[in-house]
């Protein structure tokens, strides 16, 4: 190493951490999973007459507030990451806490949405797709909330701070991905039926 005079960071640092590349791979493969889920939905929609959806115009009563909660949650995570870079640990933790609470609110609205449906998983093809797609989303959300909690706890325990922010950055990337997935699902399940 002739040019080794320059110092190199050690450990998991910003986007040079292996974990950052790892989460990108995770997002790639999980995106593919949701692409195939939505493909299954659109494929069935194209093959079947428009009457295949039990509700021609799905209600926004719960889904819209849920969407807003999800977007706000993502914003909270963004704020939290930004605060971490600005070395504002308090805001960082507060942002995480907000994100977790908003995530739980999303969960609650989705629970109400599920309870409000007159059909069950096994009623017909549409209901099978509906509950499976939203179920996959909720499962990812649940994992995300556990992850956010872990990051918050680690931060409170002093394991993480601005010098070691990759766990937060990685978790944030995953959370934004979950939000993006929900937007795609929302568009598919709630908006596209109005086009028919």
């Amino acid at each position, binding site marked *: 190493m002739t040019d080794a005079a320059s110092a190199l*960071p050690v*450990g998991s640092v910003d986007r040079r951490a292996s974990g950052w590349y790892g989460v990108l791979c995770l997002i790639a493969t999980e995106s593919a999973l949701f692409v*195939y889920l939505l493909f299954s939905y659109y494929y069935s929609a194209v093959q079947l007459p428009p009457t*295949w959806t039990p509700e021609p115009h799905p209600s926004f009563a719960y889904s819209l507030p849920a969407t807003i909660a999800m977007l706000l949650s993502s914003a909270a995570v963004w704020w939290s990451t930004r605060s971490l870079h600005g070395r504002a640990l308090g805001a960082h933790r507060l942002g995480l806490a907000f994100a977790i609470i908003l995530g739980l609110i999303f969960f609650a609205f989705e629970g109400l949405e599920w309870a409000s449906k007159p059909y069950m*998983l096994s009623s017909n093809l549409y209901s099978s797709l509906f509950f499976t797609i939203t179920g996959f989303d909720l499962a990812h959300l649940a994992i995300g909330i556990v992850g956010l909690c872990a990051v918050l706890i680690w931060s409170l325990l002093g394991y993480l701070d601005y010098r070691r922010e990759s766990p937060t950055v990685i978790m944030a990337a995953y959370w934004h991905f979950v939000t993006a997935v929900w937007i795609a699902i929302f568009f598919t399940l709630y908006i596209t039926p109005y086009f028919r």
Partner: protein
Amino acid sequence: MTFQVERVPHAGTATPSFRQRLEHIWETEPGVAGFFSTVDHKKIGIRYIITAFIFLAAGGIEALILRLQLARPNQNLLAPEQYDQLFSTHGMTMIFLYALPVLSGFSNYLWPLILGARDMAFPRVNALSYWLYVASGIFMYVGFFMGAGPNDGWFNYVPYANRTYNPGLSMDFYSLGMVFLGISTTVGAANFVVTFLRLRAPGMSINRLPVMTWGTLTASAANLLVVPSVSLAFFMLWLDRNFGTHFFDVSKGGQPLLWQHLFWIFGHPWVYALVLPAMGMVSEGLPVFCRRPLVGYSAVVLATLATMTLGFGVWVHHMFATGLPNLAMSFFSGISLIITIPSAVTVFCWTATIWTGRPVITTAFLFFASTIILFVIGGVSGFMTGSVPADWQLNDTYFVVAHIHYVLLGINVFPVCGALYYWFPKMTGRLLDERLGQWNFWTMFVGFNLAFLPMHLTGLLGMPRRIYTYPAGVGWDTLNMITTIGAFILAVGVLLLFINVVTSLIGGALAGANPWDAPTLEWSVPSPPPPYNFAVLPKVASRYPLWESRLQASRGASSVTEGALLDHERETFGVTPLDGEPDIILKMPFDSYAPFVLTVGTTAIFVGLLLHRHLWPLAIVGAVIAAASLLAWLWPERRLGQTVEAAP
């Protein structure tokens, strides 16, 4: 931005005491504890290879039983259900439990060594990927031994896989097992992609990467994108069978063709994932025995990437007989023919390498060179099936069985055997016996071609696939007998390989660091390599660091004896993906039980789901174990340098 934790890496050469220190840092604990906790890519790689060969033997025995049944018309050796489970299990074993894992094994073992790093990017993920593979393999084989092996082929078309037509646990074992195995494949693939991008020797820019890594990279990237498709399909099938959903149930609007789409969106790229890494091995090994660099490195790399990219767009050629619109079929037919071109590029580059080199005819060379011929045969039969009207005839006959075996044996088993002869000395320190090797090769080559070349004709004479018996006097008797004889000769050949491995392990000639005078980094370290791989991290200035002085091909000079000494706990360089310049010193994790425990938890989840009517709490217990082990795994460790660097 300044970093609180940073360091100028020391440069120098390795002293014996330095090596000892590294040995102490990197070695796996001996005994049972080490067995379950090791994250050493070399140990995991060898385990992968051994496990895959065990599955190869199992799949081979299944094939021999099938061939006995088909040796003569109207045989009653097997009942239809036995035959169906055997051929499905044979497919499942060879395609999922042998073909990819064996390549992952070689890549796991070789990548850090050939890239000049001390381990894979995620050593624990590596261990996890192996344990999950073994657990899912056992899971599916438990079904088989309980008489509930898959019985609908590896492709598992619905509605035959639905509960109505297929009661019992067969399909539940298979569908859950495939989701299970999919996790292993996915995490393994992510590990390869990140390792490829980040964990290399300083100076190993993207155009200096050893050619074999490109094959595994493209296969892994493809797996990340397509494995979810098949996992989802199998999961939906499992829901259909157990929870009354209607994804594939025609009576409630379900779509049987959706299964075929989801399966082949995965299935065809998967076939490329099974051959591209093996083609990479040929591109790596063949030139060594031709005593020259590979002709057309860039062409072969681009061809690899092109094959995979086009490979995403050919799945419909498995569905030409499903009543799709002509326009769609023409499109997919066109791509299926065009994909021949990158394969042709690779084949011509290999052939040109032989013609412009001085081949040294070793067993490894024979395996690699024969791959070219077998690939051409498997390739042209693929080209024929890419043509829609011809495919309407060829499809689902033994012609396609011959095709897939030329592809999967020709471009997977043969290169893997070559790779074994080539890299066995690196792994064990001993050479495989050459005399026995020649017998091994010729027996396999003759047996294989005797079995599968006439099978093309069996197909052209109209014998359909997947029939458990056939009538006499329709022209297939003699050909089937020849195939059965060939299959047994092939089996003897594989047996000779196993014998060679065992006897050479005990009494083979000692290899030394570089018995083949090969050019890449793995040959610069002792055989077998120490647990830390490289005492000093090598610096790379060309594609062939160990041939550099003789080829006068590099601008700078590679160095394998002098370089960075990273010895604060387990460390290696992270480099920029394009230029290969170090931009971080990565802290590598220690041995851990977390991957094994996580696998135990995951297994409990799947067993619980399989028997959910009786044992669903097991799935909950499994989920708790899995979550706990995952948290333990990810729990920040002060030793790994979180906010301040630990003392060396």
